[in-house]
């Protein structure tokens, strides 16, 4: 097992045992996320991981209280999740100036994300301190002023910055000013704060990329009295107890991972003693523990948590050492199962090494190993996967199954900030993909296979409805992506309004169902040529000639807009090998070769790219 003492970690690093050292650092910090461990992790991790391999990201804090002690902990968490986080922090209570002044540190820092951290006592000082002296009109006035001020700030921030913003909502006091009398009153102090929070949510929802952090629930979950340190608040403006600092850092991480795209797309699940209690091969259908009564309830709760992830767009797969028939019998027919075969996109139920199974699942689903999370009750299997596939996020389950569900619910790798239709349908789409694969295996020629899919493609210019999905695809698509340029929703919106740019989304439907938007292209007009700034395709339609249909349509669009040539860069990354042959496959000519990539050109004046006959073009 992992020895996570500091001495053992330093020794592992001295012996260049990077995998062991990284896993031990991770475990040390997850078990005890203190300030000194944070510093230790950051110092040691910089020896283990090449700094350049981590994603650089800047975070700017606007705040009304001392947040500095949270930062090293947040940086350590971020480092463990592959993000090299840089933080900057504004003065106390200067967030209005920061947002209003176009030359403020906030804008000069050019952060990827900004946090607005205030407390109820700062935003609504009268309501917090003098509630018992206020009339209902005073209360409403203070809330209205605060909300309209914030709305103005949100609007200005949105117009000046493309960064995401995370805004704390307002926490309740531990004891209302009027004591129990407060609860007897429809216009109570607590009700007023709740009302303000509802309005805050309302204005945050009006702007893309502004997200609410439910600070009140976070504090309530851990206990208001436990969270608050009155002594340090009064002496150092630090309102949070030392052992709650990591909880706020972790909450920020739930925003940081989806914003940076460092998340897991799939959860690979063990079966015995994980999805149910006991071993199906030995205990049989009647013997395994799964249902609404203890102890089966622990496993039912875990399945519920996993089903919630599925509904959030996380792909599910099974990886279990079992006889296939025994395990499928339970998944198909056990009355306690919430998760059924149609929820899973891939099955590896065999006696093979689990790391090997995970590699195969990644291949089958066409996703990177680093976007897979793995859950297994057996520490030996977890260590095996960690050692063999360090990129996989391995969730450590405690011995007590009662805690399984909360481990899954608390993991930041499944955090999502928006949910598109595609996310909602993803699990289904991948399960359908499994059936497509079976069809492919039965087809006699590749053309037959394409025809049997009965694909229908639709091309559409970007609209406000599709902005979110387009931005999401630019952020998440790594494999079939020519230039791997990342765009935020705001950037897509801006470019969409620029007459020199054309942004298209491509949707594909086939015999098994609707895949939704699976392709995106950004074209930039320059004189009589069009540059393909971005062309990408979701991995779920790779290998079905959809890219040929896309480039054929784009060439037509360019020609109709008066272009005589279309050109684009292929910028190779570690992951976009599937797109490497795209330009040569479609008869583009290479005009330049540089270290960063190749420039390819297609002459439109005397040739065109033919549209695959097996795809039907649907009117948009």
């Amino acid at each position: 097992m992992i020895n996570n003492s500091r001495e053992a970690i330093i020794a592992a690093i001295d012996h260049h045992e990077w995998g062991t050292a990284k896993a031990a650092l991770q475990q040390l910090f997850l078990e005890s996320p203190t300030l000194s461990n944070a510093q230790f992790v950051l110092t040691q991790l910089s020896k283990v991981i090449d700094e350049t391999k981590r994603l650089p990201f800047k975070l700017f804090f606007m705040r009304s209280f001392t947040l500095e002690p949270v930062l090293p902990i947040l940086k350590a968490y971020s480092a463990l999740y592959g993000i090299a986080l840089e933080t900057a922090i504004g003065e106390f209570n200067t967030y209005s100036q920061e947002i209003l002044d176009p030359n403020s540190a906030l804008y000069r820092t050019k952060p990827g994300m900004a946090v607005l951290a205030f407390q109820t006592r700062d935003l609504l000082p009268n309501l917090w301190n003098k509630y018992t002296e206020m009339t209902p009109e005073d209360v409403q006035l203070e809330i209205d002023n605060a909300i309209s001020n914030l709305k103005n700030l949100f609007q200005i921030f949105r117009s000046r910055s493309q960064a995401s913003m995370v805004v704390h909502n307002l926490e309740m006091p531990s004891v209302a000013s009027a004591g129990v009398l407060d609860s007897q009153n429809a216009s109570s102090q607590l009700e007023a704060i709740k009302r303000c929070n509802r309005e805050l949510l309302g204005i945050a929802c009006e702007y893309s990329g502004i997200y609410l952090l439910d600070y009140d629930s976070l504090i309530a979950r851990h206990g208001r009295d436990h969270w608050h340190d009155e002594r340090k608040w009064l002496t150092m403006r630090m309102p949070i107890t030392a052992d709650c600092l990591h909880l706020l850092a972790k909450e920020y991480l739930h925003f940081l991972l989806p914003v940076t795209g460092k998340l897991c797309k799939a959860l690979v699940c063990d079966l015995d003693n994980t999805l149910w209690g006991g071993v199906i091969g030995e205990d049989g259908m009647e013997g395994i523990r799964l249902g609404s009564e203890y102890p089966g309830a622990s496993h039912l709760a875990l399945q519920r948590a996993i089903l919630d992830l599925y509904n959030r767009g996380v792909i599910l797969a099974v990886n279990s050492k079992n006889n296939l028939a025994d395990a499928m019998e339970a998944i198909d027919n056990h009355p306690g199962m919430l998760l059924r075969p149609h929820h899973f996109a891939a099955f590896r139920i065999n006696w093979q090494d689990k790391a090997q199974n995970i590699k195969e699942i990644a291949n089958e689903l066409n996703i990177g190993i680093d976007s897979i999370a793995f859950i297994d009750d057996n520490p030996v299997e977890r260590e095996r996967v960690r050692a063999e596939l360090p990129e996989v996020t391995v969730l450590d389950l405690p011995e007590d199954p009662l805690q399984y569900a909360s481990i899954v619910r608390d993991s930041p790798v499944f955090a999502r900030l928006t949910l598109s239709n595609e996310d909602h349908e993803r699990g289904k789409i991948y399960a359908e993909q499994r059936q497509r694969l079976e069809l492919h295996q039965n087809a006699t020629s590749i053309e037959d296979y394409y025809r049997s899919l009965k694909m229908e493609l639709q091309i559409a210019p970007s609209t406000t409805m599709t902005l979110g999905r387009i931005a999401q695809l630019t952020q998440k698509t790594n494999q079939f992506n020519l230039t791997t340029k990342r765009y935020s929703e705001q950037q897509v919106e801006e470019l969409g309004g620029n007459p020199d740019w054309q942004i298209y989304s491509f949707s594909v439907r086939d015999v098994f169902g609707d895949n939704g938007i699976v392709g995106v292209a950004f074209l930039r007009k320059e004189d009589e040529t069009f540059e393909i700034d971005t062309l990408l395709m979701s991995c779920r339609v790779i290998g079905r000639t959809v890219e040929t249909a896309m480039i054929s349509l784009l060439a037509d669009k360019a020609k109709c807009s008066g272009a005589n040539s279309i050109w684009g860069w292929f910028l190779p990354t570690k992951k976009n090998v599937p797109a490497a042959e795209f330009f040569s496959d479609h008869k583009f000519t290479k005009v330049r070769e540089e270290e960063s990539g190749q420039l390819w050109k297609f002459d439109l004046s005397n040739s065109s790219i033919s549209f695959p006959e097996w795809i039907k073009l649907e009117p948009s």
Partner: protein
Amino acid sequence: MADITERVCEIVSTIFNVPREEVNSESSSKTIENWDSMGHLMLILELEQEFDTQFAPESVEEMYDVGTIVKVLGT
């Protein structure tokens, strides 16, 4: 007492990122560069967690060297 000194030195060394062998009872905010007011707050928070205690604000203002920290923790 020796054990407390050892634990405090260890914490001071990691929080301020200085080699353990350079920290002793004499070390203070004057000898350690990163020991500014924000660093001090982090040190205090860490000590409170490590020793499961809460310092009086008056003590916090005096605890700018390892010797004093150990004395406060010992009482």
